[in-house]
């Protein structure tokens, strides 16, 4: 885990003081809401349907138990006793009072946390693989690179008024658990002749025009990284569209001028930027990397006792192999049947913090699928961890199954939404509540967005649901065939939309078609890709 030094701490502390001053000026009436808006948005504070919502950054989704407990404390003290983990590995609080906001941030700063750049047209929180440091297939831990980028992007003077928001993901495995190519910039760490560098993808994204990022550079060396990314951003800042908010993301620029021309412009800018000396020495990456050294693994490689069938199901579904013998990766599902995807109570957050401290080398991760991970748990402790999770209603064995739904907050909270997402997620999970049935369906990533902005990642769902407003009535469109993984693809709309119950029925029919047509161990998406839309369409509309 990265630890702040006095430089990092002084920057975060200064930000708290600055924001306190801005809030005070707003409360005193010295600035209008219009003038305050860009300031609060730079700090993750949104005015939603019912109250202020504050988004707190969890850099690359990594935190320790002390930080996790602070998130519980904030939920208890400043919100209604719960928090909402988001698809960008952050946490949101939905019921924040403006006059308490600075105090909240001050408390966060005591555990090296902040809300800097969690909104606004700037470089947002850097996301990463939730299995970083634990995955057997990684070439290196991607988080030191993410931390290097976090520091570089924090209060970047040139890139704080970009045409639109900007999201960067860093992974280091061929298996993509972070939807890397659906980011404005996606980096995949690779080795070339033993040297670590980054494959750079630019111009992916979801929203109303979903696009998969093309590769712009096959290998950028560590000591060129910041210059190269700076060049990528400068070309975007200068030439990204500003005439139409819906065409302002970098994906539109890359698409309109073409990947080859964008690559050429970046290369030209890089040749210049590289002369400016903006790259830190490799010693800085080494300094950061030291914080992410593997913990002292020492557990014997023992297989857990599978005699309790509920425990065995959880092991099979939620526990993943670790690169270190004797250890495992534990996924904690925040998707109870009928619950709100990604929500956790203060008490649950505390339980997860305690388990991380007692059994998990003090580390937790937030996933883009809105779940929590304990990345390093000794296999001998798995049963104890499971029992504690079960007592806290956190042992749902549904990772990557149809009820492990990603959903945006939707019209229940969000001022941009056209339709509710949460009730649809709840109804689908309830319809498929039977665990045997879910497990029989296997991996099926279902993702729901309550508007075209696609915060619920519906484009990347094996089954995606998009809520729209049709003449004042909520209507749900279905898409099939999306994926945010290494087999990245954008889902296609299958036909006319449905009402809330209709879309639940349609999803059920699609699963029946899949069960009839699947071959071998095909997943839903494999069958869909093989047979195409027709049989599904026939069953649903026929």
């Amino acid at each position: 885990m990265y630890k702040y030094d006095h430089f990092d701490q002084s920057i975060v502390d200064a930000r708290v003081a600055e924001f306190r001053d801005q809030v005070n000026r707003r409360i005193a009436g010295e600035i209008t809401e219009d003038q305050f808006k860009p300031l609060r948005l730079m700090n993750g504070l949104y005015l939603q349907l019912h109250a202020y919502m504050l988004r707190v950054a969890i850099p690359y989704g990594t935190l320790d138990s002390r930080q996790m407990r602070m998130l519980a404390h904030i939920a208890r003290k400043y919100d209604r006793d719960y928090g909402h983990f988001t698809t960008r590995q952050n946490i949101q609080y939905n019921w924040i009072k403006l006059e308490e906001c600075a105090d909240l941030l001050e408390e966060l700063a005591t555990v090296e946390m902040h809300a800097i750049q969690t909104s606004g047209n700037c470089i947002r929180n850097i996301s990463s693989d939730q299995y970083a440091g634990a995955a057997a297939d990684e070439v290196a831990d991607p988080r030191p690179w993410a931390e290097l980028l976090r520091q570089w992007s924090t209060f970047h003077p040139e890139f704080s008024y970009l045409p639109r928001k900007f999201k960067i993901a860093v992974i280091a495995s061929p298996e993509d658990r972070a939807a890397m190519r659906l980011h404005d910039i996606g980096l995949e760490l690779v080795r070339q002749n033993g040297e670590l560098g980054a494959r750079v993808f630019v111009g992916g994204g979801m929203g109303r025009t979903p696009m998969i990022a093309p590769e712009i550079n096959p290998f950028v060396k560590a000591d060129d990284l910041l210059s190269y990314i700076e060049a990528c951003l400068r070309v975007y800042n200068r030439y990204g569209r500003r005439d139409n908010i819906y065409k302002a993301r970098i994906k539109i620029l890359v698409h309109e001028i073409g990947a080859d021309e964008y690559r050429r412009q970046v290369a030209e800018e890089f040749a210049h930027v590289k002369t400016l000396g903006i790259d830190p020495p490799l010693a800085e990456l080494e300094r950061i990397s030291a914080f992410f050294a593997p913990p002292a693994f020492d557990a014997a490689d023992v297989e857990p006792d599978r005699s309790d069938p509920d425990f065995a199901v959880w092991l099979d579904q939620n526990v993943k192999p670790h690169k270190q013998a004797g250890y495992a990766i534990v996924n904690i599902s925040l998707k109870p049947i009928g619950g709100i995807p990604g929500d956790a109570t203060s008490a649950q957050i505390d339980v997860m913090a305690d388990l991380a401290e007692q059994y998990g080398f003090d580390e937790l991760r937030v996933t883009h699928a809105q779940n929590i991970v304990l990345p390093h748990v000794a296999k001998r402790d798995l049963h104890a961890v499971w029992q504690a999770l079960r007592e806290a209603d956190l042992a749902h064995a549904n990772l990557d199954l149809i009820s492990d739904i990603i959903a945006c907050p939707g019209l229940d909270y969000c001022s941009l939404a056209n339709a509710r997402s949460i009730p649809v997620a709840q109804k689908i999970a309830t319809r498929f509540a039977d665990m045997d049935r879910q497990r029989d369906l296997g991996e099926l990533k279902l993702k729901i967005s309550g508007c075209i902005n696609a915060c619920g990642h519906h484009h990347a769902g094996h089954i995606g649901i998009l809520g729209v407003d049709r003449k004042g009535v909520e209507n749900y469109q279905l898409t099939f065939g999306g994926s945010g993984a290494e087999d990245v693809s954008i889902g296609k709309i299958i036909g006319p939309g449905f009402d809330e119950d209709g879309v639940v029925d349609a999803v059920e029919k699609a699963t029946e078609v899949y069960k009839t047509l699947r071959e071998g161990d095909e997943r839903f998406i494999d069958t869909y890709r093989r047979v195409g839309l027709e049989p599904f369409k026939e069953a649903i509309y026929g």
Partner: protein
Amino acid sequence: MVEFRYRTDEVTEQPSVTLDAFLDQSNATAVRLEPDDDARALIPFLDRLTLIEVAFPKYRDGRGYSSARILREAGYTGELRAQGDVLVDQIAFMRRCGFDSFAPEASLNPEAVARALSTYDQFYQKAADSAAPVWKLRHG
């Protein structure tokens, strides 16, 4: 009107001309860049310019930040002025990008500007100002 100036030399009296006009006639010493002008077009002429004014018609349009850095990176040492929708909370970023004078459309409170400029004393990245980035302070 220039409200804040962080230079000691004389203010240029000559009114600034558009980039197109400058490239046509060219004996002007002051030029004004709109957001979609290419700052690099001025690079051959930097040593005879004493003022470059960069327009910010809307504070949200951040192209002027890149224009400023490009000019400073090319060695421009004359006055670099931000004009237009310039707000107090942007001045620190603008200073880091190389602006050294400010002509905000709506007058700014000098105390608030002074406070904004002194809020941060550490910076993560190297920019167009003289501040040493944190990584430099860490590693010498």
